[in-house]
């Protein structure tokens, strides 16, 4: 099962190419390191060893402790709808780790010669800087109904994540009912940290439109929700872009 990941870097001066390539390489390495540490599929990953009871809390790496902390935060902020402890097989932070990894990776790309960079891993996107002087980052939200259509275009300063029932059937689990469940066709969250955007998108997709009641109270995060009737719901602060702009 493959997910396409892209890294785009906008930089100044052709002579700086090597510098940029090195940064890209570090960025890729960051993603790979995160995967090795937090993969639920790799038996020797720190996560797998933790789940298997091989590691106690005081043996965990700094990154792992950071993820645990953020999982607690995300669970609290989402009023329990993001709950990596509710899944079968033990603690599974996958819904947050990917965003965290990408956010870590994008920081490796920041430098004096880079004026903009974007990392897109399977539709979860983090950016830094700006792509050009005229406008900011515009990202399309895929239509959950028609594969080759988009639902809207959003301007994004930091990150955007989308979760959808169409994505991986059965992967979204209601933490309260413990059954596979997605009450929305798709949920997109924009915000300052992809780690939380990712977690919130998953939570909203499971919970449904009611989730906007807690999301709107989290400062700097916004959402676009699309239900199965094609009806969309957005928070007020989102910047929607006309496709012709």
């Amino acid at each position, binding site marked *: *099962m*493959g*997910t*396409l*990941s*892209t*890294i*785009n*870097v*906008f*930089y*100044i*001066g*052709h002579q*700086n*190419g090597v510098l940029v*390539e090195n940064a*890209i*390489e570090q960025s*890729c390495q960051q*993603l*790979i390191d*995160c*995967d090795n540490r*937090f*993969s639920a599929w*790799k038996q020797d990953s720190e996560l797998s060893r933790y789940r298997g009871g091989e590691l106690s809390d005081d043996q965990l790496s700094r990154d792992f402790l950071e993820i645990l902390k953020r999982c607690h935060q995300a669970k609290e902020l989402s009023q329990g709808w993001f709950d990596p402890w509710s899944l079968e097989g033990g603690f599974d932070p*996958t819904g947050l780790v*990917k965003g965290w990894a990408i956010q870590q990776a994008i920081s490796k790309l920041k430098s004096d010669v880079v*004026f903009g960079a*974007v990392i*897109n*891993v*399977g*539709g*979860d*996107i983090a*950016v830094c800087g700006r*792509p*050009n002087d005229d*406008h900011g*980052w*515009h*990202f*399309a*939200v*895929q239509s*959950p109904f028609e*594969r*080759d259509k*988009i639902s809207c*275009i959003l301007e994004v300063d930091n990150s955007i*994540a*989308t979760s959808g029932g*169409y*994505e*991986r059937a059965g992967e979204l689990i209601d933490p309260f009912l413990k059954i596979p469940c997605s009450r929305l066709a*798709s949920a*997109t969250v924009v915000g300052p940290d992809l780690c939380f955007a990712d977690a919130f998108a998953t939570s909203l997709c499971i919970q449904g439109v009611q989730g906007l009641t807690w999301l709107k109270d989290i400062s700097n995060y916004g959402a676009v929700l699309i239900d199965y009737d094609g009806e969309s719901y957005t928070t007020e602060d989102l910047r929607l872009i006309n*496709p012709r702009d």
Partner: protein
Amino acid sequence: MSSPFYRRIIISAAGLIAGFVAVVTLHPTGVTISAALISHRSSPGSRPPASASGTGGKSGSTDGPQAPTTSAPSVTSTTQGPATTTSTSQPSQGPQSAQGALEQYGYGELAVKVTVSNSKITDVSVTTLQVAESYSGNIAQQAVPMLRHEVLSQQSANIYGISGATYTSQAYAASVQSALSKLHFA
């Protein structure tokens, strides 16, 4: 101020992110389509090739990245596999299409056709799609049109990506690139 440049790297992944095949393209900002380039697919859990990020920026063509005023997009790549083909034909302004090489994409094979007119990609379509099992078929049905959309939208709407599901074939990217190479577009 010196001219801005744009660099893209594609990494393929299995699981969360594992093992990548990476290629860098380099061309002036403002030029839109950067055809995704992938040389071959990675196997789950594999380590990346040491030189994975390539050394883009060396273009033998006169409208290469060193000439940011050119209107023709230039895409430079370093590939490590059999994906790209080269062509010595001259660029043409009329509509032209070329079929990309047939690529293995893990679940089957696919090839795409790319149509270029006046230095713009006007269509991308899938000409061959063979999948091993039904699950793969679903993936292909989902990913291929989306990628098609991404390829087309990136050169028209200042969109830098699509947030959503991406079950993706690096093979698609490779095939697009191969078709572009045949058109001397890349």
